[in-house]
């Protein structure tokens, strides 16, 4: 058991992945000597060498595109995109190349690539540094998308993602990088593509992932004061979605509120709402309601706390759900 921040847990997980398989390589801007702007790769180049931990030229399409080539050569590249807002230049290489080679080759070619993206707001950053682009990748067939909400998951999920033979977009909630937890390196992790019930409750199901899991847990805690018992699910895997646990919960509570930082329109909440309604039509006592970022480009940081869903907005939506 070690007390680790999420950033350090990811670092430890990457270290184990590098140790476990000599074909694992890390690539990205400033991941080498500097150890990444969030220090997630700190010390890895020193210990594994420049051939395994590669400082890349300043070109995202190049980083992902060469990773596709390295994967074809038998490597297992882990790319870092420095911030969420800088993944777009690599969009073609992700959605039309990495995502399709297994499919195009009828399974002959594997694409064991992980693309790590620190994402989300709440750190007072300048623009393009606080985005939540997960829906773009979830809508893309051929990719898998996951996100961790705490150091324990971070430690295991990054290793599981590296071990997977599919291309995985790995979202790291940057505002949770510094939160700590005890990590038991000898435990056995839950499967990568499974959601988790993080707080049982009976009245309303809160469905969240990444940075919003803590917000929802806080909201659930606060709600007890008003005698409300909220269930909280941490999705963990955004594509494929693990619906079983979600549906079971909603069948029980009859009410669901989805919570994410990304824009409302066509965000994950939409897909969750559609699927839940389809599968739990007769159990629902209220429509699935959605708390999300407003449908604006991310605003200047001085108003980000208002832009981002917070405890108050979650509880407000819980009230609305219960009012049906």
């Amino acid at each position, binding site marked *: 058991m070690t007390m680790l921040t999420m950033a350090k847990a990811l670092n430890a997980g990457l270290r184990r992945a590098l140790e476990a398989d000599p074909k694992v*390589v890390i690539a990205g801007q400033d991941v080498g000597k500097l150890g990444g702007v969030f220090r997630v790769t700190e010390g890895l180049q020193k210990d594994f060498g420049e*051939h395994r931990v590669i400082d*890349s*030229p300043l*070109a995202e*399409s*190049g980083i*992902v*595109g*060469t*990773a*596709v*080539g*390295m*994967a*074809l*050569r*038998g*490597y297992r*590249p882990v790319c870092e995109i420095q911030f969420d807002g800088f993944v777009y*230049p690599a969009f*073609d*290489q992700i959605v*039309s*190349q990495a995502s*399709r*080679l*297994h*499919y*195009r*080759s*009828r*399974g*002959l*070619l*594997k*694409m*064991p690539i992980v693309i790590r993206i620190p994402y989300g707001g709440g750190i007072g950053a300048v623009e393009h540094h606080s985005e939540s682009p997960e829906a773009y990748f979830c809508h893309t*067939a*051929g990719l*898998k998308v996951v996100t961790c909400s705490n150091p324990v998951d971070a430690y295991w999920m990054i290793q599981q993602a590296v071990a*997977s*033979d*599919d291309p995985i977009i790995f979202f790291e909630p940057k505002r949770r990088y510094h939160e700590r937890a005890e990590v038991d390196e000898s435990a056995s992790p839950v499967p990568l*593509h499974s959601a988790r019930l993080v707080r049982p409750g009976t009245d309303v199901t809160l469905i969240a992932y990444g940075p919003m899991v803590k917000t929802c847990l806080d909201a659930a805690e606060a709600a007890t004061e008003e005698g409300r018992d909220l269930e909280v699910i941490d999705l963990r895997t955004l594509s*494929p*979605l*693990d*619906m079983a646990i979600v549906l079971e919960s909603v069948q029980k509570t009859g009410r669901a509120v989805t919570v994410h930082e990304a824009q409302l329109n066509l965000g994950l909440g939409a897909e969750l709402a559609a699927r839940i309604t389809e599968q739990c039509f007769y159990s629902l006592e209220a429509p699935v309601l959605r708390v999300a970022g407003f449908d604006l480009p991310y605003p200047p940081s001085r108003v980000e706390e208002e832009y981002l869903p917070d405890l108050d907005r979650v509880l407000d939506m819980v009230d609305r759900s219960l009012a049906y």
Partner: protein
Amino acid sequence: MSDVSGASGEVELVQLLTPEGERLQHPEYSYSGDDDQIKGFYRDMVLTRRVDAEATALQRQGELGLWASCLGQEAAQVGSGRALSKRDFVFPTYREHGVAWCLGVDPVHLLGLFRGVDLGGWDSQKYRFHLYTIVIGAQTLHATGYAMGVERDGLVGTGDPDRDMAVVCYFGDGATSEGDVSEAFIFASSYNAPIVFICQNNQWAISEPIERQSRIPLYRRASGFGFPGVRVDGNDVLAVYAATTAALERARSGSGPSLIEAYTYRMGAHTTSDDPTKYRLADELEHWRLKDPIERVKAYLTRRGSGDEAFFADVEAEASDLAADLRTRCLALPDPHMLEFFDYVYAEQTPHLEEQKANYAEYLATFEGAEPSEEHREAEPAYGGGV
């Protein structure tokens, strides 16, 4: 300010065999193969052209949705393809049928993509010939990454020809404008990757002439990224072979990337969907017809007496057989079934797709074993689709 090449005159073009079939010497690039090898090139080019013509015919008859012809580019493809060792690895565009031939890819595999029965029908690792890439320029980064892997594997600069290897990446003149291609140059240069970039400058990107993409010869692009570039007569199979051999040796020895601009011409339409009379003049075509890559080898072999009537006739006969066989096998290509594609998306299948597949199978079953009624299908419009 540094030299702007447009101003500095002469563009050198490496040529070892003139359009009239005369051998030339070049101070830097020499060809030392014998006439048997040249006869081999001749055969490769004729067969490639015949496969290409048959595919075009198949498209015209509705058997393929589309075909991208390599007519006129046979020397650029065979000359470079034959310079490869068994260890090298190739990343093509969608037009390298001649390279595929050299690497032993059965031509029928090439048809799958264009017939719409698959998305690239060969085992790319086995043939060391990656699947065709349609998104212009994207494969240049894959090739560069592959070459970075080769370098990490310690397979360059060992001096052992059974170990050292290189990567060859093809792209067109138009492709040089895509950001991905410049990024590939940067990564290749930065990591000194063992790669040979071969740009087949066939003068056109669909309807756009090369001048829209670059005002100076393309081979000079390389120098701005820190590696050498050379322009060869792309219709001269010997020059292409010599330049590719040299560039491959450079790459395998650990000296890094280089660029070959094979100066050639797209004799046909961009694809079978295209009508080049809309944008280019017949004159230009006539001009290039005189530089035909096959004719000049035939002239050379004839003059040398290395190729006699019988030889040429044999190759023709072989080509006819190949084409006939290709046609038969094209028509026999099995149609895929929608259900199988659910299994190709991921290496590790997801419950979501499993369920979607099951639902669809169940839905199909409601048609009592029959496929959905044909009458409900909409007619295909005239336009047969892109590239």
